[in-house]
């Protein structure tokens, strides 16, 4: 079963290393007999790889910053302070997750949002993709709230008695304690931006601004697709995600469990 699941990634790598000749053999060779490493070099020449890589890194970094900052503050308000109506106002957060798990760009809201961003002249920039992430994401709010509810209330209470104000408690006491959950949000947000296709497709019209996800469409030409080069480029796009996962796999796995636990 594991073999089945990893097969597309394996096949991506094997195909990337095949020559045009080996590519058109049937039955397909299950590993490349004469690996053509230059496919990678040629793939990066088919589209402005470094520009797109830089754009994608910048996009992911901004989304990570916005997501960590905004969702931490919002989830703090939903978990560490007692106020009347708090738990009622949390219902719309949960309800939003179920329809808008793809956030902020999804097929239901994309048409009016595009019209709005077009009106204020923000189309063809990263603003429509990045700005919303600074205003909270229901799934991340849920995940962080779950985590911060587990931190004993006494810790905040003790600091309040010592005269600390809410912002001091948030940044000096809760922030360090919530760090594992914030790493999870940063990772999910970063990978989400890296993997985003629909957002860049709609909002980025100038090829200097393209992300790697749009870059892969360069391999689909009128003459068909050169699969070995496309797969070489795909490997380069997938590789960072796999590396990040291997480094932080504990956070990914705990994050998924935390986000799904109810």
């Amino acid at each position: 079963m594991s073999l089945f699941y990893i097969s597309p990634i394996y096949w991506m790598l094997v195909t990337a290393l095949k020559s045009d000749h080996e590519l058109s053999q049937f039955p397909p060779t299950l590993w490349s007999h004469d690996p053509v490493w230059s496919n990678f070099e040629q793939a990066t020449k088919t589209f402005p790889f470094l520009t797109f890589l830089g754009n994608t890194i910048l996009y992911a970094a901004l989304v990570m910053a916005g997501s960590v900052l905004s969702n931490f503050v919002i989830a703090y308000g939903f978990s560490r302070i007692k106020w009347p109506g708090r738990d009622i106002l949390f219902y719309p957060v949960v309800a939003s997750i179920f329809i808008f798990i793809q956030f902020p760009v999804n097929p239901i809201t994309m048409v009016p949002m595009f019209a709005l961003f077009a009106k204020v002249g923000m189309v063809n920039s990263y603003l429509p993709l990045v700005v919303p992430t600074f205003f909270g994401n229901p799934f991340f709010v849920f995940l962080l709230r779950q985590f911060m509810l587990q931190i004993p209330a006494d810790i905040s209470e003790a600091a309040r008695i010592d005269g600390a104000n809410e912002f001091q408690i948030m940044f000096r006491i809760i922030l360090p304690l919530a760090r594992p959950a914030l790493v999870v949000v940063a990772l999910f947000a970063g990978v989400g931006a890296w993997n985003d296709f629909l957002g860049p497709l709609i909002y980025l019209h100038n090829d200097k601004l393209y992300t790697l996800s749009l870059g892969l469409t360069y391999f689909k030409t009128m003459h068909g697709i050169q699969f070995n080069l496309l797969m070489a480029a795909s490997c380069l796009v997938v590789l960072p995600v796999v590396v990040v996962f291997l480094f932080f796999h504990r956070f990914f796995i705990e994050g998924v469990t935390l986000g799904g636990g109810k």
Partner: protein
Amino acid sequence: MTMKLRHHRGVAKDIRSLLLGLLFISPWIFGFFLFLAYPVFSNFHLGMTEYSGFGEPEWIGLKNYQELFHDSLFWTSLCNTFYYVILAVPLGVVVAIVLALAMNQRVREVSTYRALLYIPSIAPTFALSMMLIWILNPRYGLFNYILGFLHIPAINWLGDTRFSKLAIVLVAQFGAGQIALIFLAALRAIPPHLYDAASLDGAGAWRKFWYITLPLLTPTILYDIIIGVGLGLQVFVPAYIMTDGGPLNSTMFTALYIYKNAFEYGRVGFAAAVSGLLFLINATVAVITFWSSRYWVNYNLE
């Protein structure tokens, strides 16, 4: 007198904590209204205009909805989307539970297996879709080659209307690793003494699964169904990349239809009308699923 004073102090404190709470969640309030509530309502407003994306929207009342009603491609897209959801969501639940049971085995290499199952679910869908075009290639593809061993003749997966939707369903299954981990956590939370008691009563593995494991997984199944329906009704990327809606519109899903109308045909008002309907459908299905959960979800022993 003192009672009254104390009461006043209590109210003042409540108001202060309310304002403080609202201050902290204010980015969400702003985000909720601007990025969710506004576009949802705007869909219905914009849906009553004719708008090409340039100039000003022109008010035409319910004309888009009338047109939509007689538009066979809209109905095709809706049928395709439901076909996809009805196939992909239950299959996704079964696959995720099977994966979770497999990951729950006590073998030494389990963390490696877990990683291998999980990685495709965080790999970008657009890259997996591109990969699947090649794996499903009718002449050179790996998939048909493997099916050849079972004496199944070559299938033109993405070029045959009978199989194209199945191919898109297949892509979604590679994302099952994520939800499988949630099922795994639910499996681990089941108290072992339940199984011990069942063993004493002479229950076999299948009866234990059916009467203990499955009922205790129902809250996770509910979560999976609701998320899966939301993602399924809005499926876009695999169809856009692998088939662009073809062949013969067999993978023209509603989300793709919205995209094409708004961004390729310049029918923004019409696309907004479709988006509004898609929202209503999604919300209705989610509410019905929740409502039905009281009859089949087991919240005891949480």
